[in-house]
């Protein structure tokens, strides 16, 4: 697929290049909640499959669809978020009547559920590029709150190329 469709210029921050989103399947379809890997190589987004919102992972430039072994069910999916190289995909899935935060490790095929404190219903996720922390928007006591969690005991880092691996997860005195 041709990646580049329009070139814009003439502004103080430009020029920037506009690229058509890769189209998977049988032509144009509704697509929501885009999430890029840290290096911009991969794009996760939500498409409709059999009337259910389903996460689709693609190479941004070629449009090639990448398999997600653990996520072919448990729709509707929402709020995808990718690590730097796309090893980890965090998202919300349906678990009975509740939304469940999970992380698929594409290197091992393992699906890791994230159990939030009781009474907090996840609405949106953002995984740090190295996969060592996650920010979760929850409904708690009727209002929207953000919670930051350390994942360093759960996931190996997915570092940017050339970045020294660290233990992660500190940075702030509790």
């Amino acid at each position, binding site marked *: 697929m041709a990646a580049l469709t329009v070139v814009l210029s003439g502004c103080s921050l430009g020029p920037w290049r506009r690229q058509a989103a890769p189209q998977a399947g049988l032509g144009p379809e509704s697509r929501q909640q885009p999430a890029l890997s*840290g290096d911009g190589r991969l794009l996760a987004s939500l498409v409709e499959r059999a009337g259910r919102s389903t996460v689709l992972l693609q190479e941004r430039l070629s449009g090639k669809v990448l398999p997600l072994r653990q996520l072919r069910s448990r729709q509707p999916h929402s709020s995808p978020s990718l690590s730097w190289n796309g090893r980890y995909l965090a998202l919300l899935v349906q*678990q009975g009547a509740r939304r469940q935060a999970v992380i698929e490790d594409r290197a091992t095929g393992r699906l890791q559920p994230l159990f939030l*404190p009781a009474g907090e219903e996840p609405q*949106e996720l953002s995984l740090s590029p190295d996969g060592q922390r996650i920010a979760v928007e929850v409904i708690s006591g009727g209002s929207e709150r953000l919670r*930051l969690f350390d994942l360093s005991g759960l996931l190996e880092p997915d570092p940017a190329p050339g970045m020294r691996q660290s233990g992660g997860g500190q940075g702030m005195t509790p």
Partner: protein
Amino acid sequence: MNRPSGSGPLWGSLLTLALLLGGCQGGIRPVNGINQQLNRLGSSASPSLTGTWLALIATRQGGRAQVQLIDLQRGAPVPLLGLNRADSLPISVAVDQAGERLAVVRQRDDRSELVLYRRSIQASQTLAIEPAGVPQRVNLSADGRVLAVQVSRGGLWQVDLLELP
């Protein structure tokens, strides 16, 4: 680990087992210092987490929604001079790994616009949506080079990708 057969009860049993084996909260730990800071911001939504930066939209009781950028090493918000305006309402935000570029979708004068803010020069640039559409949600690659925007166009949700210089 093989994929479960897809039945709800089996999946539920596996989750329960994982909870029991994994201990408190399945191995994730709240970052309490930051979470206390976040509680003080009031209602907060639209998280974008990269390295040592957390961008979000916070609304204090009785106040207007504002984009906030938290320096996670210092545990405190940093100034975003010129980004939050009295005549606009942010609805989605994303930040790059360096904490330099913030992409914001905001409502202003009854229309939605996409803005790229550069913190080092405190400058905002409105990015045109072409073909015309209504931006709703934005995501920025951590390297700050690619922007993905969810746009309503012709009754369809689409994703526009922009490569930034």
